[in-house]
């Protein structure tokens, strides 16, 4: 019954011509299924949650707000559609420039896609559900018809045509792999929505809408990736490392044993990799002695591993199969610009 009325609303919206605006009002009727977010052990289909009124179009339901990150994580050049769901009557709490503290019942949704407009193809949607006993990360894989995304507990390996890299063997992570990146001290946590990596405009709108309690200090401190040529190179590089590496490379992360700490706030040169010898890099070292040799990216393990697509060498280990050329470019310029003697 509900589905039928939605279909009618959708049709009405389309016939009205200004689809988005009219749909936005029509959408008010669709709400997220809080039982799926909070209780159903592992919902089998993305549609069970009701995060979208139009899932294929990625048009969100009420209280599901799209967002972007100033500096995003690289995933084989896929475009990402991110959404945050905060249940009605609840609020995320600002925690300085760090991760917004989302209340129980919230969800973060991220869809990975290639192509634009009518050619856009949704590959997978990953959800992070904040339940009473903590966050749960689950991956959903879209079908070829683009009508539904089903739970892909064990992940998947797909041949995907991409505009930038041609056909690649794209990896949808399994449930455990979700956790490998999304964990601090073995507890699942979100990574992306830190205030410092969200725009002030977005945050202001969230505060105004009542989804966030207050404007966090330090909002938007990370440079906007597309504007990196105008930004401070050190900030750009450190933002890139924070977003792409620091979920593992920090004292409570998966790569804690490496002793490499690539968080934005880390200011000890050795911890960031400067003249730091590898611990367990194996052939990842590429015959080089230090993570970063100031002034010489060609002798820096960091650049060697970022520039490899060879499993066992390539960094990050998960979530990508191709090299992020723009990321390598930034880190290369950053290291080459380091004065050799200052550290």
């Amino acid at each position, binding site marked *: 019954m509900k589905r039928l009325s939605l279909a009618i609303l959708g049709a009405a919206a389309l016939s009205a011509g200004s689809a988005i605006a009219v749909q936005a009002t029509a959408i008010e009727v669709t709400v997220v299924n809080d039982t799926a977010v909070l209780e159903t052990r592992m919902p089998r289909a993305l549609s069970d949650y009701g995060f979208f009124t139009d899932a294929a179009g990625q048009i969100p339901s009420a209280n599901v707000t799209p967002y972007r990150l100033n500096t995003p994580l690289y995933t084989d050049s896929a475009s990402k559609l991110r959404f945050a769901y905060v249940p009605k009557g609840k609020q995320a709490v600002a925690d300085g420039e760090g991760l917004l503290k989302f209340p129980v019942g919230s969800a973060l949704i991220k869809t990975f896609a290639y192509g634009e407009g009518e050619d856009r193809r949704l590959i997978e949607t990953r959800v992070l559900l904040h339940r009473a006993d903590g966050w749960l990360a689950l991956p959903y894989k879209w079908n070829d018809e683009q009508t539904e995304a089903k739970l892909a507990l064990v992940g998947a390996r797909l041949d995907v045509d991409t505009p930038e890299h041609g056909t690649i063997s794209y990896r949808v992570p399994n449930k455990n792999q979700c956790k490998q990146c999304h964990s601090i001290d073995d507890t699942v946590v979100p990574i992306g929505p830190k205030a410092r990596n969200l725009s002030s405009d977005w945050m202001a709108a969230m505060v105004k809408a009542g989804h966030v309690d207050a404007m966090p200090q330090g909002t938007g401190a990370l440079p906007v990736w597309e504007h990196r040529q105008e930004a401070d190179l050190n900030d750009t590089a450190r933002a890139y490392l924070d977003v792409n590496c620091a979920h593992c490379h920090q004292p409570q992360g998966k790569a804690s044993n490496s002793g490499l700490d690539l968080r934005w706030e880390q200011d000890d040169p050795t911890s960031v990799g400067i003249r730091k010898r590898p611990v367990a890099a194996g052939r990842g*070292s590429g015959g*080089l002695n230090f993570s970063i040799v100031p002034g010489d990216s060609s002798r820096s393990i960091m650049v060697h591993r970022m520039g490899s697509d060879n499993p*066992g060498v390539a960094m990050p280990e998960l979530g990508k199969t191709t090299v992020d050329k723009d990321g390598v470019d930034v880190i290369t310029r950053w290291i080459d610009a380091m004065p050799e003697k200052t550290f």
Partner: protein
Amino acid sequence: MNKLNRMCLAAGALLLAAQPAWAETITIAPGDGAQERLQEALILAEPGDEIVLEAGRFALTDGLSLDVDGVTVRGAGMDQTVLDFSNQMGAGEGLLVTSDNVVLREFGMENSKGDGIKSKGADNIVYYKLRVEWTRGPHEENGAYAIYPVESENVLVDSVTTIAASDAGIYVGQSKNIIVRNSVAKYNVAGIEIENSYGADVYNNLAVNNTGGILVFDLPDIPQQGGRDVRVFENIVVDNNTRNFAPEGNIVASVPSGMGVMVMSHFNVEVFGNVFAENATGNVLITAYPNETEDADYNPLPVNILVKDNIQGRAGYKPAMRGGEMLAAAFGGTIPPVTHDGNGSDIVVQDGVPVLSLGFTKPAQPFTEAQPSVVDLSGDADKPLMLKPIVLPEAMEAVVKQ
């Protein structure tokens, strides 16, 4: 079914319930979809469950992972059940374990692109009768570690075989309370390595044809340091003369080929009752950390190292350490079987053999400043063994009695 039968069945079930009542056995066969079927079982397992891998080859394309406490993964034997990663396309290891009380037993793993089996923050883990191997033999592009527990408390590695790791066959790092025994390490760069760990017994192993047989190291700039309390005893450490094929940059790349046991910048190590022979550089080397470091919390020196009651077979006939050729020439072709770089304190060698001292007075000194000489480090009196045996939780020892 009549009532009596039901009662008998119920009684039988109770008797068998040594495992939690809900424990299940999930059997996985090799063949199509092995990657998905096995990974699904690893994800959906409940504590107490046993995942049984049937005999045969499992062709795998991505790293496997286990994050459920109390799960046993059991194969049909280290040569009968083989996880084959020859066509691996992603992930940094073949199998990653991140949960506690896990038992891995009786299967083999071949040709993973990175490490073999890694367990991180996985307390009370048992590795039993496993084989992890790179089948092409020593090669720079083999994975670094075959068996790789790290940041864990209570680690048991028993009756495993590791072959051709480009770093260490059995590597235990930044862990506490460790036993490595009854195992074979061959054709690795380091056969067995205990690194930045607190409390380890390494005994009754065979380390043969590695670059270095058994290493006890402590390194700077990593979260757990101050490695201490390691006993290396009753091992056979012979013929460790394979060329060093570790990529430069890794600390083991500095291990000279022909090394038996090497102790680097560590507290409280006892090396006793081992059989050493045919290690061309030397049977035992005790040394400071060889590189410059700015880590103020780090002690680069070996402290309180006792080498005692070992059988010292032929060694030192082709020393490959810095200045080795010159040293050999100076000592008539063969250097003593035990070398001490001169650094550290309380270094005692009571094996009835001469010791070569390199005469360094600080770590990371250039070889040109060496003052080589033969020294007697046996001290005044018989120095007793002081370190206590490692004791693991009974449940872990029970595993290897089954």
